[in-house]
């Protein structure tokens, strides 16, 4: 059981590292002749990965997955409200 829990944590950590590298690479694609350029698809990708990473950390590392319902609800509402607000302001 202990090995299984550790395997899950390690898998989560590996996924977190992998998607971090993807988001870093994504940021680098919005470049023209060595200058950063605006890119809505890149921004949406970066924000989506950010939300995904925050949720993975909350659910698995902070153990919200097995926490009382009020905490699961609060964290999910925060995630949607926060990342939603960031995207809305960016698109405005």
């Amino acid at each position, binding site marked *: 059981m202990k090995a299984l*829990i*550790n395997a899950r944590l390690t898998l989560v950590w590996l996924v977190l590292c992998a998607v971090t590298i993807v988001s870093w690479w994504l940021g680098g694609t*919005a470049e023209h002749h060595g*200058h*950063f350029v605006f890119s809505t698809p890149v921004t949406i990708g*970066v924000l989506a990965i950010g939300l995904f*990473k925050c949720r993975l950390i909350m659910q698995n590392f902070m153990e919200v997955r*097995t926490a009382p*319902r009020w905490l699961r609800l609060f964290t999910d509402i925060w995630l949607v409200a*926060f990342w939603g607000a960031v995207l809305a302001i960016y698109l405005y």
Partner: protein
Amino acid sequence: MTATERTMSPPHDRDTMSPTDEEANSGIRLPGEGSMWVFVLGDMIIFGAYFVIFMIERTSESAVFLQSQQHLNQTIGLINTLVMLTSSWFVARAVRACRAGDYQGATRLTVCGFLCGVVFILIKIYEWSVEIGHGYTLASNDFFMFYFMLTGVHLLHVVLGLIILGIVFRELRRPTLRRASMVESGATYWHMVDMLWIVIFALVYLLR
């Protein structure tokens, strides 16, 4: 564990680190102290407000922000994110080791998490010194004001997190002090610090 259950627990329960029967049956429980969660959730709301203000300012000066972003070292940002994630991984495993009664393993993993936090600070200081060396300071423009303020306030959280991990380390080393709730609370705080960095990396470094 509710406050009533905690106060009614016999003293030796401090060392056993086992959940109550009710918690064990449902599998649902709040890790750590409720007061730590109040602090963590409050911090998330406050930081959320800072980030929203950053986004509003970015919208009004988007060209300046994009141009200034170019002067940040994206690769250092990536490395620091990987260091922070690794630190959280060590600390999450320390909690599980502690619950399983493997206090030596938990202590070792807490030290690994702590050292990653120190590496994060060293990299951040190097990054700041390079930026300042190139003439970018708080006063340069609004982007750099936000960059130094957000990363600075976050760094204070890292320092506080290291102090808390130090307390966890001290408790794990002394059988009479061991409390599962303290180890879990320390871990909860540390993961929040990790999560806030993830938001900073996305908004300040990568947004286009």
